[in-house]
């Protein structure tokens, strides 16, 4: 019946020709593997140009000294990495900041271990920030997730309220805390300084106080992210397990300890890894609340030096990448265990 209808439309497009048809035909005849890699080409191009190339090039640059305005780059091998560890390169870092911390002494006075210039050290500040913020974010996020896991009226509005801090721009997050602690406007400085929590004067230029403020700001914003990840884990728990536990006479605390917590643990692990990786990239919040001179994070040091000593900046950037890479390996190991 199709033979007499050919005039009404193209029944067999095979008879068409032209470059477009040829390309389409070629694509359609690719095997799954060929087709897969063809479609991934844009991803490879983009990530190759914007991620892989810069990463390799950063490593290459880190082997050269390239002081802006003093002529061409000069090959120095791993000198930059060595000088970071010996402290020789600290002169290039902004203000009084260093890459490593100073002497460590232990005595009887609180907090017993005293580290010289710990808040001046880019490495220490980054690690402290990551550890402390992730710890509290996990705790608070868990609490928020438990709240959101309940059925109650207005739950979706509470959820919106809890998510909103996560969704606001970093610069505005920074602005809020900047305004809270700015000497001319802040209500919080006076209040907290009375308890000795932050410095009385010049709070945003005090390394310890600023680090604390930045950490709190991050906890405020990012707990919600933790909460959502944990909530997803909670909601994947089979509800009938709780019925079994109830019938067996378990109290709420026992239900939490014996069912909820063990089942949520893998989710929690991967969420913590993700957050730690993210926290170690901290830059924008510091830049907008305080400044990189006051709170030296690793990313901060890259930005602060790349206009003057590009080789050293590259070395710091690559060290940052390595530290984060180790954490990424943790994630990959987790994914591998789950059989991605």
């Amino acid at each position, binding site marked *: 019946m199709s033979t007499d209808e050919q005039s009404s439309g193209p029944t*067999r497009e095979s008879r068409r020709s032209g470059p477009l048809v040829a390309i389409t*035909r070629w694509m*359609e005849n690719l095997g799954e593997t060929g087709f897969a890699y063809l479609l991934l080409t844009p991803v490879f191009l983009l990530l190759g140009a914007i991620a892989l190339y810069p990463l390799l090039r950063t490593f290459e640059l880190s082997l050269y000294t390239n002081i802006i305005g003093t002529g061409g780059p000069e090959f120095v091998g791993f000198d930059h990495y060595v000088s970071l560890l010996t402290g020789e390169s600290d002169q290039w870092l902004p203000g009084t900041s260093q890459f490593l911390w100073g002497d460590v002494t232990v005595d009887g006075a609180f907090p017993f271990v005293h580290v010289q210039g710990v808040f001046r050290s880019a490495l220490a500040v980054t690690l402290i920030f990551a550890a402390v913020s992730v710890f509290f974010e996990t705790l608070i996020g868990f609490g928020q997730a438990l709240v959101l896991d309940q059925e109650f009226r207005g739950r979706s509005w509470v959820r919106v309220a809890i998510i909103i801090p996560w969704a606001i721009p970093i610069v505005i997050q920074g602005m809020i805390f900047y305004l809270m602690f700015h000497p001319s406007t802040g209500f919080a400085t006076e209040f907290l300084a009375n308890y000795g929590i932050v410095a009385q004067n010049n709070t945003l230029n005090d390394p310890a106080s600023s680090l604390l403020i930045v950490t709190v700001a991050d906890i405020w914003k990012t707990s919600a992210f933790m909460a959502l990840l944990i909530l997803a884990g909670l909601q994947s728990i089979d509800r009938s397990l709780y019925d079994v536990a109830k019938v067996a006479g378990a109290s709420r605390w026992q239900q939490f300890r014996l069912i909820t917590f063990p089942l949520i643990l893998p989710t929690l692990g991967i969420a913590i890894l993700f957050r730690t990786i993210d926290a170690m990239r901290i830059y924008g919040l510091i830049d907008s609340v305080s400044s990189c001179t006051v709170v030296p994070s690793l990313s901060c040091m890259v930005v602060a030096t790349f206009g003057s000593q590009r080789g050293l900046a590259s070395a710091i950037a690559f060290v940052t990448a390595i530290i984060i890479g180790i954490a990424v390996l943790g994630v990959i190991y987790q994914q591998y265990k789950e059989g991605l």
Partner: protein
Amino acid sequence: MARVTLNHVTKRYEDVVAVNDMNLEIKDGEFVCLVGPSGCGKSTTMEMVAGLTKPSEGNIHIGDVDVTTLPPKDRGVAMVFQNIALFPHMDVYDNISFGLRLRKYDKEEIDRRVDHASDIVQLEGMLDRMPDEMSGGQRQRVAIARAIVREPDVFLMDEPLANLDAKLRVHMRTELQRLHKELDTTIIYVTHDQAEAMTMSDRIAVLDAGELQQIDPPLVCYNEPANLFVAGFIGSPAMNFAEGKLVPGGFESEHFSVEFDPSQIPGASVGDRVTLGIRPEDVFTTDRIQNLSSATASLDATTDVLEPMGDEIFVYLVLGESAERSMEGETASSNQLLMSVNPDSDIQEDEDVEVVLDRSKVHLFDTASGHALAHGIEELPGSGAGGGPGTEAGTGGRTGADTESQVTEAESDR
């Protein structure tokens, strides 16, 4: 012209051969069922005809065009899928006209064809419904209309009725036959249900383990199965099989024997291991023997379980004088025999009976290769009263020696 030809088509996946050296010729306007158990390669074969899968070797022609490397859209085929596969985000009209709109037909032509197609499958007045507002049967009609509207050279149907309930399935079967009569287009139909294949198709292609076993009209497949697999697969309940060997007096197994002249079986000689096959309806109790032109000598048996089906009764027989009921499924085949009897029969459980087999319906297979050796066997000359040797002279002529060539033969002489 919409002949479909498969020449030496093979499809290999990493470690399995899904379809092995398949040769098929489907004539214009023919309704062919590809049937076989799951994993036999029937769906892969259809996907290769559709172009959804590329064969590893061989080529496929639709009409006069070699379509082996053409994408599905350029093959002039339309397909109805097992899971119906209506686009859930489009209403019925958009679903049916999808292919036409892609081909940039003009609006009036599309409307005319959609109207016509929805007429054929009785979907008038439902064109603005969404698929999730329709019943399973209605959705199936939409899927069929979507295929009809393209006026394709070949219809491909991949178990289109598998997801429907039993009653609707029977109804849709007749609808599809009516549709085939109306459209007169080539239809290739995949199913695992041999009853579906038997009732609808002009020819059945039986597949197993990626290989074509037989392609013939339904009754030929039923009466003259090319091998053990086809014999066992076509027909419900399945054919009885008994393993044994050829002896000078005929066939002998552990529990019974059938006498005939082994020299009439070409391609086999005394001493060969053979399998005898007999369908349940070709087993008779001796009191009904008068209908038979030629019966074997009677066998002693005991009735075991009865399964009254309404229109017939299935009787499970245990063969042998000291009829010991064997509970082991594995060995049961050799001393168990299924017989179907008239529903008004007064046969009882645990009754000693004598049964005979209809000689003209006895099948012999080579046990090792599975190939059919003979369909129908003649009496030993001079033994017993005159049977009707004429019955098997015609049909029993086809013997297993040429099973290989049977496929091509079947194609050419029909």
